[in-house]
């Protein structure tokens, strides 16, 4: 299955991926309308220390501890993609407590959200990857188990 991979040596720390993610998932067609002057709720975030930066989003784990821990049955694996049913989530934060990568965070509405590879929105493929100016994140098959 194709996943999003990072090459931290190439990350500029520009946070564009975060904006592209928030826009792609806003359901709006105008980026300014969608994002300008508002707090954004991206499903990818740039982590950094003094030397490096890199973008982190859900790894779509083979053994997804979030799915196994969700108290509401809101997380599931479908064709290898870890999906969230926001209608079932009760915002208990158990998934945040267990995800080893910090890949879940609350949405504007309070319930959790996570990267679903843009397969459900109008973008159809990860918007973060599409918009990365330095190819520091790529969307490809690397033979990892699903």
């Amino acid at each position, binding site marked *: 299955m194709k996943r999003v*991979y990072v090459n931290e040596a190439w990350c500029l720390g520009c946070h564009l991926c975060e904006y592209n993610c928030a826009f792609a998932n806003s359901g709006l067609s105008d980026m300014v309308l969608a994002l300008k002057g508002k707090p954004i709720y991206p499903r990818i975030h740039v982590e950094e220390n003094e030397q490096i930066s890199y973008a982190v989003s859900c790894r779509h784990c083979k053994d997804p501890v979030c799915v196994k821990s969700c108290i509401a*049955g809101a997380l599931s694996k479908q064709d290898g993609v870890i999906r969230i049913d926001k209608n079932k989530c*009760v915002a208990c934060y*158990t998934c945040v407590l267990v995800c*080893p*990568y*910090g890949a879940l965070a609350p949405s504007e509405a309070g319930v959790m959200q996570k990267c679903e590879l843009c397969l459900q929105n109008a973008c159809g493929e990860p918007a973060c990857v599409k918009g990365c100016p330095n190819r520091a994140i790529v969307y490809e098959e690397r033979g990892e188990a699903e």
Partner: protein
Amino acid sequence: MKQYVIIGNGVAAAGCIEGIRSVDPEGGITVISEEKRAVYCRPLISYYLEGKTDLDRIGYRGADFYESMRARVLLGRKAVRIDPDAREIELDDGEKIGYTELCIAAGSSPFVPPFEGLDSVKNKYSFMTLDDALALDRGIGPDSRVLIVGAGLIGLKCAEGLAGRVKSVTVCDLADRVLSSILDTECAAMMQRHLERHGISFFLNDSAARFEENTAYMKSGAAVPFDVLVLAVGVRANTSLFKDMGGEVNRGIIVDERMRTSAQGIYAAGDCAEGTDISIGQKRVLAILPNAYMQGHAAGVNMAGGCEVFDKAIPMNSIGFFGLHAMTAGSYDGELYEEKTENSLKRLFTGDDLLKGFILIGCDERAGIYTSMIREKTPLSSVDFTLLKKAATTAAFSAEERRKKFGGVV
């Protein structure tokens, strides 16, 4: 062909079914369920009272779950005896069901200490099942004064669920603080203040000594009038079936890391089982949902002839009340690192070059990075703990570790 039987139909059973089917598409699966319901999310019964979920959404899996898993469910039937020699289960109506592999996923039951005069209380409830919640839902009104005995997770979740719907909610507990099994004194005080701001009153270090119809007389002498009583003192693992057949039982049914019990062909999982808590290296019942699923899944895989070891069990809870979340994991033994603000509290406990446990209140971002370090026993010397103390970030791991995690490099 194998004949799998599962006693119980909660989340551990669901994990077991999915575990079996990940290995064996063919064997017969029979689930014996005392409750007359498809598997539902037990922790959501307080959210049901609050209106944050409903009978459609509270289901743990989709409507076609048993069908798609080709599992037969016997709803409203109870297993009363296990005959390990004949490999048979006897049901309450005398029917016998044979098994080649059995999983006991019978969960836990509310424990009610003998209170004097409890029989005189008419409007009283437990808070364990969806039926309990539905009965409580019918038993309350806007004028009800509710008394909850037990300031643990279940009692307080019940309090939160009821707060907006009744006149008053009072909680009492023998312990000197709320959530005494997961919070230390200062953290508990912070949570208690928050709950009090939302209208919940407390009698701590004190509890009901006896009841007289609609009044509880406390040990301290206070008289607390109420209309509705909820008993949430504690839970006990359902071990009797296994104990009666001579199996090894402590507080729960003793299991190894593949969920095998002391009896051939019999596995146990979830709230009724006692496996190893790796944060203290001792056997312990961990009555939390993630544990139920993971143990159930491991049991299922092993029952079906696969091999799944579950050796990462630790206590871990994420519990929120009126918007303030407390996250806890592991054990609180060791050296303390602390950060405090008016609205948040972070406590990390370290020792033996490991993160042993934590309490986080009001600062939950990416907490799973800490949890995974406890579960994986990540040596602190292999990470930049100075950075990690301030914020949970994978940037504190080594470059090689990050390549493994995010670059698909194995």
